């Protein structure tokens, strides 16, 4: 009895059960007709796969880290709400106790206004906000948002950011360019050869990790090129820290 098409196809695709396979292979050693059928089926499959491959387009350069940005469709439970309240209270306490915080003064003025009335409140004096500083070479804990892309032959990382946003850049042994924001609401858009980051809101620091193997990666803040890695050469508008990291800001000097 010859092999039917079900068995021939299963043989091609490794879908025969082990005892069936032994039986089929034993039959093929003795039956030239079935051997010919199997060979024809292999040729037909190769022909089909070659034709289907003509339909292919290049896949997009998304990675799994992008999925972290997608909202989870889960209602917050009581545990989450309680954790949120505790977190908010802790943050408020830390803000109140921080040296130079305007919060105590603001609360005092609010209390005065409530107890004495509008006309007796002195005008509030705003404490100037000092520029942010970052510990050299230490990435911030937590990554609320980020994206990773394969750098390809060349990649432009283009920031369209707020006034005092900064980017800490360093080289890694990874295979992907990663961009993370340490807070705020950033929008990441990945295109062919370009990764655009838009951020509007309170200043945040971005972290940019570039593979050492990336042939060409350029970082721009608006129209200004602040960082360029071409093969083994790095040209940046700021000096590297001892840990080999570059802190880029829009006010980085021309070099």
């Amino acid at each position, binding site marked *: 009895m010859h092999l039917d098409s079900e*068995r021939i196809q299963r043989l091609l695709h490794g879908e025969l059960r082990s005892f069936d396979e032994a039986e089929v292979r034993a039959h093929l050693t003795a039956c030239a007709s079935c051997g010919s059928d199997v060979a024809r089926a292999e040729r037909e499959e190769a022909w089909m796969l070659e034709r289907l491959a003509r339909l292919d387009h290049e896949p*997009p350069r998304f990675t*799994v880290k992008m999925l972290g940005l997608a909202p989870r469709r889960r209602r917050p439970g009581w545990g989450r709400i309680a954790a949120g309240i505790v977190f908010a209270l802790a943050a408020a306490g830390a803000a109140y106790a921080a040296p130079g915080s305007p919060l105590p003064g603001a609360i005092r003025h609010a209390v005065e206004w409530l107890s004495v009335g509008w006309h007796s409140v002195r005008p509030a004096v705003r404490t100037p906000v000092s520029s942010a500083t970052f510990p050299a070479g230490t990435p911030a804990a937590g990554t609320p948002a980020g994206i990773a892309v394969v750098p390809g032959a060349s990649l432009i990382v283009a920031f369209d950011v707020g006034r005092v946003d900064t980017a800490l850049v360093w080289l890694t042994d990874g295979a992907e360019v990663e961009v993370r924001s340490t807070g705020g609401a950033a929008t990441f858009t990945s295109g062919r050869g370009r990764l655009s980051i838009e951020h509007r809101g309170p200043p945040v620091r971005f972290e940019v990790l570039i593979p050492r193997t990336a042939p060409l990666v350029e970082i721009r803040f608006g129209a200004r090129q602040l960082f360029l890695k071409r093969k083994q050469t790095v040209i940046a508008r700021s000096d590297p820290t001892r840990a080999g990291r570059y802190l880029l800001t829009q006010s980085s000097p021309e070099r």
Partner: protein
Amino acid sequence: MFGTEFRRLFRYLDRLSGEPDLAADLAQEAFVRLHARGTMPERPEAWLVTVALNLFRNVKTTRARQRRLLTVARAESVLADPAPSPAQTSASADASAKVRVAIDRLPERDRGMLLLLAEGYSYRDIASTLELKEASIGTLLARAKRAFRESYEGDTDAP
């Protein structure tokens, strides 16, 4: 898992739809749903392709409805389409178009089976995705391959 499954899922949807942007959207949406699900299904690759196929069917249904409602507008749009670019008329694009015509002529079941097989899905996954009996997948695949070849050769010169 994303690294291996996304490419496979994208390629399957791309070949199925002929629209790489749509394929990317659907593949990404399937992964987002897997993420939102919270727990991993027993066979995640089969789960992903089933969800993606259902999403694609929804898109097709919606488009068909829109076509019925906007027949006149669509006809005007077609008439206003620009002439194909040189790249589109190249030999490569021509070869791709022939395959597209041949695969689109097949019944949905045959088309789905061949494209899933080409991506290396198991008979079990093919059966569960297309709601078929696993025991007859080999026979159905042989028929689908024959139908694809006849469809291709009916439209073009024999290879």
